[in-house]
């Protein structure tokens, strides 16, 4: 039986790491992730958590140390955001290509420039092609639970793919809610001790890891990596189901609300989905046939689940919390591909950008998204450009 604790997103992740029996953490502080590493350090120092913590001198070194330790054969963790995630970019590809079951918490913070401390998804989006499983939590409870589920998924022998568990900077990382923290023994039984079932650095079984790979064999190794990611979808579903039976909390790769008969469906990720749910309920009560689709696992992208959820939709509005300058939002483009896969060619689809650099996504923002969508549909205006729905007009007050 778990214990209810008042935890913010960061502390929840730290407790998730401890419950997952992580053996080695190497991390570098960056706002808004710092409480994660501080909590872990504190738990270790107080003797409550038996693990090694390496106080590395940069994020690049953080992921390098973690890759080194994971290659040797122990369970590892790191966390970062924004600039730090950008600095370790070289290594995120190394980690996934080396098929290491590392879990990393990302506390979503805007990529520079302009320089910001606050939330948007531009940082984790830079990593979408780096081959990591990406889970977007919407509450501190999910943050803790997703860390545990991520380890079980990443370490599965058919997956062997590292995972990012992301929480919105400040909106989730610094939001305190009651969190059901699993009992140490129970979570220990759920996770189990680490069994390195791929690479190890062992003098009794020597080989070279990650050396130069010729064009003749590169594609096949990469394809095997793709299969691992593809398998993650099914393994996630299994792990979500098992988690529900043990801990009583049920998750899925997507979360749907009233999509079956909705005319207009809003698609989004992260903490804004809570506000979106509130607005959708209100609009439903007022008689509007709207629905909400929240994408939980952005990688592997749940294309079939999304296609299915949107199959009867007349209109789809997608909110991306990242600028994606030069084209449409990343989530929008994935949704379009899923619509096509699902055969829903008639639906009108609109790309929205909101909540950049820590700008709150209010009920008004969501209401505007629905209003603009409705308006454009009525006027027969297709989506030529992403709609920056909360961008102030020139001359408007900046506060």
């Amino acid at each position, binding site marked *: 039986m778990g214990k209810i604790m008042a935890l913010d997103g960061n502390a929840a992740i730290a407790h998730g790491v401890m419950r997952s029996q992580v053996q080695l953490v190497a991390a570098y502080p960056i706002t808004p992730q710092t409480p994660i590493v501080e909590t872990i350090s504190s738990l270790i120092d107080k003797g409550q958590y038996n693990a090694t913590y390496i106080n590395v001198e940069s994020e690049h070194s953080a992921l390098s140390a973690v890759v080194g330790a994971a290659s040797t054969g122990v369970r590892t963790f790191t966390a970062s955001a924004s600039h730090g995630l950008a600095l370790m970019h070289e290594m995120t590809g190394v980690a996934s*290509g*080396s*098929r290491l079951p590392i879990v990393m918490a990302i506390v979503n913070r805007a990529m520079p420039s302009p320089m910001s401390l606050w939330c948007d998804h531009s940082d984790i989006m830079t990593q979408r092609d780096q081959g990591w499983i990406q889970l977007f939590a919407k509450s501190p409870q999910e943050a803790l639970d997703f860390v545990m589920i991520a380890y079980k998924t990443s370490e599965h022998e058919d997956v*062997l793919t590292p995972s990012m568990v992301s929480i919105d900077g400040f909106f989730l990382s610094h939001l305190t809610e009651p969190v059901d923290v699993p009992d140490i023994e129970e979570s220990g039984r759920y996770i189990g001790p680490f069994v390195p079932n*791929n*690479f190890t650095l062992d003098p009794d*079984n020597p*080989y*070279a*890891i*990650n*050396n130069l*790979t010729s064009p003749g064999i590169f594609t096949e*190794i990469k394809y*095997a*990596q793709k299969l*691992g990611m593809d398998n993650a979808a099914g393994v996630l579903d299994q792990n979500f189901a098992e988690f529900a039976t043990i801990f009583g909390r049920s998750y899925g790769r997507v979360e749907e609300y009233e999509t079956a008969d909705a005319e207009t469906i809003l698609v989004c990720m992260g903490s804004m989905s809570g506000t979106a749910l509130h607005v959708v309920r209100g609009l439903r009560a007022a008689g509007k046939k709207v629905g909400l689709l929240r994408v939980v696992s952005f990688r592997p992208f749940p294309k079939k689940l999304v296609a299915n959820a949107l199959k009867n939709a007349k209109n789809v509005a997608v909110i991306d919390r990242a600028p994606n300058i030069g084209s449409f939002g990343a989530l929008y483009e994935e949704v379009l591909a899923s619509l096509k896969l699902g055969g829903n060619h008639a639906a009108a689809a609109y790309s929205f950008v909101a909540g950049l650099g820590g700008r709150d996504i209010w009920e008004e923002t969501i209401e505007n998204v629905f209003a603009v969508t409705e308006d454009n549909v009525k006027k027969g205006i297709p989506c030529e450009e992403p709609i920056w729905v909360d961008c102030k007009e020139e001359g408007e007050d900046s506060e």
Partner: protein
Amino acid sequence: MQKLVEERMKKLQSMRKLKGPYSVKISDVKTGTWRRERPVIDLEKCIKCAICIEYCPCGVIEKDEIVGIDYTYCKGCGICAEECPKKAITFVPESNFKTKEDV
């Protein structure tokens, strides 16, 4: 065949296949084919001091009863001849020998 190469071939057969970029097999390029001339040890002059063995970058010189060179791999860099305190090693053009593997 190099002992190491042999050992790893056996290992490769018994090991299960792993995922990702890795190499079990030992690189075994016949670098002896790079030579245009080869070191020959005058066993009369050789005092078995093993200085040539110490400096050989490719580890192809060994001392058992006599000091011998593995011509399969010797690149002919010339360091052994240069460092031999007794000038017991001379370089002879490859054309003097039938095959690269002649010992």
